[in-house]
């Protein structure tokens, strides 16, 4: 259904609705115009994910918490990261929130169109809705994790500054754009070849270890040397660093010392570049999506 007809509505209007193509042509813009539909899809996704589950929404706590304890014990205690990284649990957890947000958006977004096959085949709606809804659902899951992080931060002596807010928002903005971009590309690719769904698992692993979550930036800088761009060229890793600067750095004993020695110089600049790169990625993804959009309904 076209956007124009939505505002115009029904027959009795004195003015005639315009003649327009019946299929949506505005891409992501139409998703924002039809927020009520997006809201329904997100609600539905949230209830469907915990359908017939006894613990329900609690799973969104259990999943990251279990990962957290694995890293905390294996990396922290067994491998000795507690000694080399100050306040290691907060370091891991602030990174984990970012990585988890991305991998969830990426994974659920990739499956989103194929999962909604019955709707895609019969109802006219902008198909960008599904990957975007997957991103919003993942964003929803960030909230309880963020609450846990805040609690732990406060308990370990956290003194946030204005940069905390800027960094935190910037990090989430980068991930929302970049996650949606990849979800768009992979969701449509997955319609044609399900191989892309399997590829997601591999890429997710790279993301998990490519971010400064279980190791600190300082450790990486010592080993990677001139290859540091491998991390800084990755918007997710930059978002991760921004988040850690916002939460972890200010929970250490000497925050300014930590920021100076444990983070790359000009982190906020890197953050802005990463955001721009993510927005460009989103535009490219939209172009890619449009190219294959018309074949989705028949190939799915």
């Amino acid at each position, binding site marked *: 259904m076209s956007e124009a007809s939505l505002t115009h509505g029904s027959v009795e209007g004195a003015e005639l609705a315009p003649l327009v193509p019946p299929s949506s042509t505005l891409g992501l813009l139409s998703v924002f115009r039809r927020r009520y539909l997006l809201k329904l899809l997100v609600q539905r996704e949230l209830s469907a994910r915990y359908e017939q589950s006894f613990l329900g929404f609690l799973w969104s706590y259990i999943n990251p918490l279990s990962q957290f304890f694995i890293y905390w014990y294996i990396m922290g205690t067994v491998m000795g990261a507690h000694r080399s990284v100050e306040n290691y649990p907060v370091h891991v957890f602030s990174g984990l929130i970012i990585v988890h947000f991305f991998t969830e958006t990426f994974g659920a977004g990739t499956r989103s169109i194929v999962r909604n096959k019955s709707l895609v085949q019969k*109802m006219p709606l902008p198909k960008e809705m599904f990957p975007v809804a997957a991103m919003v659902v993942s964003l929803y899951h960030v909230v309880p994790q963020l609450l846990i992080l805040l609690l732990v931060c406060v308990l370990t002596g956290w003194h946030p500054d204005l940069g905390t807010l800027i960094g935190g928002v910037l990090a989430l903005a980068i991930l929302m754009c970049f996650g949606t971009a990849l979800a768009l590309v992979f969701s449509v690719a997955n319609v044609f070849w399900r191989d892309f769904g399997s590829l997601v698992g591999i890429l997710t692993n790279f993301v998990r270890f490519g971010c400064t979550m279980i190791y600190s930036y300082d450790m990486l800088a010592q080993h990677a040397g001139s290859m540091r761009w491998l991390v800084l060229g990755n918007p997710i890793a930059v978002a991760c660093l921004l988040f850690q600067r916002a939460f972890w750095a200010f929970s250490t004993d000497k925050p300014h010392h930590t920021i100076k020695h444990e983070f790359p110089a000009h982190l906020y600049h890197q953050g802005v570049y990463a955001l721009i790169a993510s927005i460009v990625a989103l535009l490219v993804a939209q172009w890619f999506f449009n190219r294959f959009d018309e074949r989705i309904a028949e190939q799915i």
Partner: protein
Amino acid sequence: MAEAIVAQNVTKDFVLRRHKTFKQMTVAKMRGQEMVNRFNAVDDVSFTINEGESVGLMGLNGSGKSTLLKVISGVMKPNKGTILTRGRIAGLIATGAGFQSSLSGMDNIFLNAAIYGLTEKETKAVLDEIVDFADIGQFIDQPVGTYSSGMSSRLGFSIAVHVDCDIFLADEILAVGDKPFKRKCMTKMEEIRNSGKTIVYVSHAAASVQKMCDRVIALEKGRLLFDGDVDEGIRILDYGDEDGDELSVDDAELGADV
């Protein structure tokens, strides 16, 4: 009179991939076989439907009726040519609405209505009517996956007819459902037609097309075969009732099962 649907040289082709896996594709490439097959489900079709017209879309199975309906509804985009429509479109495509089987009937009502472009308030205003018309009792709160095919098409039809639309698409709506419900549907369809809405009605049942429509568009192998008078269209398609003595008059009127 203003146009409601304008189709200009609409062509929709399907790509049939012959080889699905890397191995098959490599072998095919080495043997010099064709990798893909294309065929036109709808081939260079042009017509204009004015507001308030009730058009029967006819043709044999595989003639491209459903694909054309999908193009009109916006589910598919034409590869060539343009399709323009005016106002809100509602209706059923290929017997049954796009339901999400894990959701309850109630949730699906809200979701489908939102896809048609209704707001929450508009949906709530017609909710009781939709539930009453579908008449599936307490199943409305059960997941649609547990419905029988009759039940889900009742609900789908009920949602589609209660959306305040400008163009109503009906594809084999009477194929499923029992006789009392078929009658109820026909009455509702006539109501929609008499309210001045544009209707595109797909059916194999000549009698019901004669009753409902004032124009027939016939397709053959994706091409426009005929566009004009109802009786002539039916005659050209040879839907005459030479084998009709098997059907009771009632069945012919309401639409034979597919």
